[in-house]
């Protein structure tokens, strides 16, 4: 056979094999390095600090775990959160993350490596991203071969879609969840391929870890049954499927029920019923197969098959019935909002108010995945080409994940891995085709590619047997090729899809190869540039610290949040209760170490609505609420001075809405708009707006800052009234340097039992109108 370019031929197969494996290890190491390094922008640009909001709670919880031990953590009742209700932390969180870093912490200390727990938390996500890359490699290896695996690992290592949730410091469940997701799937595929109980159990174990780590485990809980079901419907039932699924479901479910927060949900809620149903179906089908193996009457079999289907349908109905009777809880709101997209806004405004629950526009897809996003369909097609069981899995995963990612921005996270895998498959098969030096001989009859593919689609029946042997074949092929070709062997290894007819296929000439390869490599390069840019610019700022540019271009850090939190921590009594909107609850608890009314774990709508009501009602209405909850300080975020758009006035409408949900008579959203239906804060602002506590606290003495000149709110871009609002029931206690955080102290009752308004006007020496004697003393004549 002619070769497009010559290869060194004096290499022994062993050398080639070793070199390739060595190269593979080196490549993986480098990829891990890249994955970790590209997530350290945040640390380099700013510092080693916990980001965002939720991570602050995880960090705090981890500290408790590290200092007081696991049982103390399990029984931890956080009486500073949700004051005065308190929060049973042990039973309301997924402990996986904290447990992980707790273990790491203890191990390191046992080795006399006294690492600060904060640094462990900060660097956990990058560390696990490396593991993710590795597990993706393993997963993709099962799909195609090592070369595709390496590509996939590289992709997921630096794909912004995953980096966005795993930069150093974003210490959130997703940090480890994606690794667990991929590894569970890998184990599942492995178990399915080999039909080994060991891998089934491994799947279950990692599933358990996943359950302990992230609420998104429901994704696995439904993906695997869906895969199994599809396989059954495709008539690909096999003892391997049976073994794998049964061992996973039995052990996994039992294990998952050990997590306190999950408890009996796996047998009580609809999210988990699919798994149970498929489990039942599998038993029936298995039984049927068994019978079929022994009985040999076609007619009987068809009846049997019908009955199987019938039983399956029955099961579905039974499930519906149970749900109807209420023995099985229906979909939870968050889950339901994935299907009926209007649901959340209507019934659970708290969920709808979160920015990461918004639908995704295409630019953010492209931003997060760049050229992977269009390689992805190609990869899916290739999966269809050789339709082994694992490819079915990828296909299902692809379609489901792309839907979810479209509905919610944050679910982009679950899409990214499959995109990387599919893209890697597509890309590597391209490279395979064009790097292979072998040129076909010209004499071969020309054929249409389409025909070439018909035989490619082998009948489902014997696919499993084929797929079962693929890996072994691959090994042989690798060895074989290795003998002929040297360095290229690493990528050439195992490029023989199962059951392909021996049609002459190949590329003529070197230029064609060079063109395609150059093009491909150019894209890869571009991708790297893109990822670096996106990561550094978009995903690496720890919203606790804001960065701005000095006139001389140097970085100026705006640190108001920590300034205010630290002030609270240092100069207020230990048990001073701080009221703020729930976004800042975790940060206050973590940095200021003070009790808060509400925080980001939004479990009690009424309590949040109470805060919303206090914020959106006039002082004299809000005051009793504040006193009843022993509130000492009220903390608000105000961006008007430097134009920080994420401030409370912009979130105000959500407070109003949530409050309205509970007190429709007292709070009504329309009252906060002007007659023309605009949302204004200037002179034309609606009276309800102007009297609201939030408005008053935000703009208290703001106009004075500008002296005589007109004071402009830089966020709303409106002129605020010259005479600012006055406060009778609160005192300004602290305002941060750029006025971003403003803290107010709630006054105590007046010592003469007057209402504070009159008391105030008296202190300012205003004359009060002479009060008339009470009516009961009307003249008696």
């Amino acid at each position, binding site marked *: 056979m002619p070769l497009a370019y010559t290869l060194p031929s004096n290499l022994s197969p062993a050398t080639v094999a070793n070199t390739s494996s060595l190269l593979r290890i080196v490549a993986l190491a480098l990829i891990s390095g890249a994955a970790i390094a590209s997530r350290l922008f945040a640390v380099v640009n700013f510092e080693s600090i916990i980001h965002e909001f939720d991570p602050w709670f995880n960090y705090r919880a981890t500290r408790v775990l590290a200092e007081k031990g696991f049982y103390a953590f399990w029984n931890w009742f956080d009486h500073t959160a949700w004051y005065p209700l308190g929060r049973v932390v042990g039973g309301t969180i997924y402990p996986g993350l904290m447990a992980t870093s707790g273990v790491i912490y203890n191990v390191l200390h046992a080795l006399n490596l006294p690492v600060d727990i904060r640094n462990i938390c900060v660097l956990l996500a990058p560390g696990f991203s490396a593991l993710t890359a590795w597990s993706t490699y393993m997963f993709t290896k099962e799909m195609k071969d090592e070369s595709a695996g390496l590509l996939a690992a590289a992709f997921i290592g630096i794909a912004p879609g995953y980096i966005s949730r795993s930069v150093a410091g974003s210490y959130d469940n997703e940090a480890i969840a994606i690794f667990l997701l991929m590894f569970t799937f890998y184990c599942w595929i492995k178990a399915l391929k080999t039909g080994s109980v060991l891998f089934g159990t491994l799947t279950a174990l990692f599933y358990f870890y996943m359950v302990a780590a992230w609420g998104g485990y429901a994704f696995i809980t439904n993906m695997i049954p869906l895969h199994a079901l599809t396989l059954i419907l495709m008539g690909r039932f096999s003892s391997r499927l049976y073994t794998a699924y049964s061992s996973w479901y039995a052990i996994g479910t039992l294990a998952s029920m050990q997590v306190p927060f999950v408890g009996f949900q796996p047998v009580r809620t609809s999210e988990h019923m699919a798994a149970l149903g498929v489990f039942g179906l599998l038993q029936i089908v298995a039984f049927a197969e068994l019978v079929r193996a022994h009985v040999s009457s076609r007619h009987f079999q068809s009846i049997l098959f019908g009955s199987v289907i019938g039983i399956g349908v029955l099961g579905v109905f039974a499930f519906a019935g149970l749900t109807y009777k209420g023995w099985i809880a229906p979909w939870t709101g968050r889950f339901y909002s994935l299907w009926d997209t*209007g649901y959340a806004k209507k019934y659970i405004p708290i969920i709808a108010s979160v920015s990461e629950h918004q639908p995704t*526009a295409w630019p953010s897809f492209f931003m997060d995945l760049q*050229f992977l996003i269009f390689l992805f369909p190609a990869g899916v097609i290739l999966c269809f080409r050789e339709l082994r069981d694992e490819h079915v899995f990828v296909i299902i995963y692809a379609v489901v994940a792309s839907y979810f990612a*479209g509905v919610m921005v944050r679910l982009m996270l679950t899409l990214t891995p499959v995109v990387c895998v599919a893209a890697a498959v*597509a890309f590597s098969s391209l490279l395979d085709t064009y790097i292979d030096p072998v040129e076909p001989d010209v004499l071969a009859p020309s054929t249409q590619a389409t025909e070439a593919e018909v035989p490619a689609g082998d009948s489902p029946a014997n696919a499993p047997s084929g797929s079962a042997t693929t890996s072994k074949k691959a090994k042989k092929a690798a060895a074989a090729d290795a003998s002929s070709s040297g360095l290229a062997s690493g990528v050439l290894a195992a490029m023989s899809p199962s059951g392909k007819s021996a049609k002459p296929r190949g590329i*003529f000439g070197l230029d064609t190869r060079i063109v395609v390869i150059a093009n491909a490599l150019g894209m890869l390069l*571009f991708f790297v540039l893109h990822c670096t840019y996106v990561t550094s610019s978009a995903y690496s700022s720890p919203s606790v610290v804001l960065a701005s540019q000095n006139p001389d271009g140097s970085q100026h850090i705006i640190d108001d949040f920590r300034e205010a939190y630290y002030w609270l921590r240092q100069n207020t009594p230990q048990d001073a209760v701080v009221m703020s909107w729930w976004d800042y609850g975790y940060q206050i608890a973590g940095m200021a170490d003070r009790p808060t009314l509400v925080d980001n774990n939004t479990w009690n709508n009424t309590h949040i609505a109470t805060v919303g009501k206090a914020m959106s009602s006039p002082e004299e209405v809000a005051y009793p609420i504040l006193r009843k909850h022993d509130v000492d300080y009220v903390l608000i975020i105000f961006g008007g001075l430097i134009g920080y758009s994420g401030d409370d006035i912009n979130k105000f409408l959500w407070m109003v809405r949530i409050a309205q949900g509970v007190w429709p008579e007292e709070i009504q959203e329309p009252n906060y708009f002007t007659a023309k239906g605009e949302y204004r804060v200037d002179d034309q602002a609606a009276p309800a707006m102007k009297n609201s506590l939030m408005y008053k606290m935000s703009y208290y003495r703001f106009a004075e800052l500008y002296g005589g000149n007109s004071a402009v709110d830089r966020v709303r871009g409106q002129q605020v009234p010259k005479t600012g609002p006055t406060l009778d029931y609160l005192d300004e206690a602290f305002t941060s340097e750029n006025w971003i955080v403003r803290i107010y102290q709630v006054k105590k009752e007046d010592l003469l039992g007057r209402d504070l308004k009159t008391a105030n006007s008296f202190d300012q020496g205003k004359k009060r109108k002479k009060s008339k004697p009470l009516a009961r003393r009307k003249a008696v004549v």
Partner: protein
Amino acid sequence: MLLLPLLALLSLPFCLAASISAEDAHQKLVKLAAANNGLIKLDDSSYNLLTHPKRTWSSSIHFTALDPRRRCAPCKEFDPSFTAVAKSWSQVPASERDTHFFATADFDNAMGTFQKLGMQTAPVLHVHLPAEGSRRPASGRTAPIVYDFSNGFDAGPLAEQLSQYTPVPIPYKAPIDWSKYGTAAGVTLIFLSTVRLFLPILRSRWAWAIGIVLTSLVMTSGFMFVRIRGMPNSGANGQWIAPGYQNQFGQEVQVVSFVYGLLASGFLMLTLVTPYQTNPYRQRLQVYLWSGVIFVMFSVLISLFRVKNRSYPFKLLL
């Protein structure tokens, strides 16, 4: 029997609401309501009647401008659902029914009222709580409660919201949409009957492949965003690219998914088809062609993205 209400209607303009006592007002209202299956058509005087200072009844008044000249699309949208709710209210027993009234004030009949209330927009829905009697609110609030249209013009939520102010919840049931069920049933029947014909298609993996790839293409080009946010297909003055990074129009879905598809197929061609081309020259041609297509389309895509995200530094050809 229809004469009475008519008389009442005629008599109304002459007697001023304030002058007459609450009881008579109530009588009249009941009649009016009965006349027009539960929905009172308001003019200025009957408005005063309905919002009688000593009223013992509550009422929900719907201000609208249905006249085509007013060009009020939402009014037309909202009116049927309000009418439906009012109708359903007329089913409850008289004892409760006559303690809450549904009324519609059209701009052209009740201009005075509109001016008096300084109403700029329509539709608006006021709920007047009783000023006297047992159902008088604790807050003693007499000013009308403005209904919040935040969750749409549909009758369902409307009934739900209003039920808070009525003595008994409004027995509103959404009419069963027979046509929908009918078509659904029909489709399934046809499908089942012709399943034999479809079977090969269902069996063929490529049918599935195309279906799934198309789905994911559409999804990844922001279809759900357009659907959930109800974005228009294209913006005003014919621009089809929505400004802003977190924003897009319906048309972009088509364009972007087309570009994606083209790029994907380019790769597939290079990977699957070209190698089987046994004629070297044809093959070379194909290779160059597809590489070119990929490169060009990619740069087009980038430039598209640059339009959405101005600060994006990279670019290819254009």
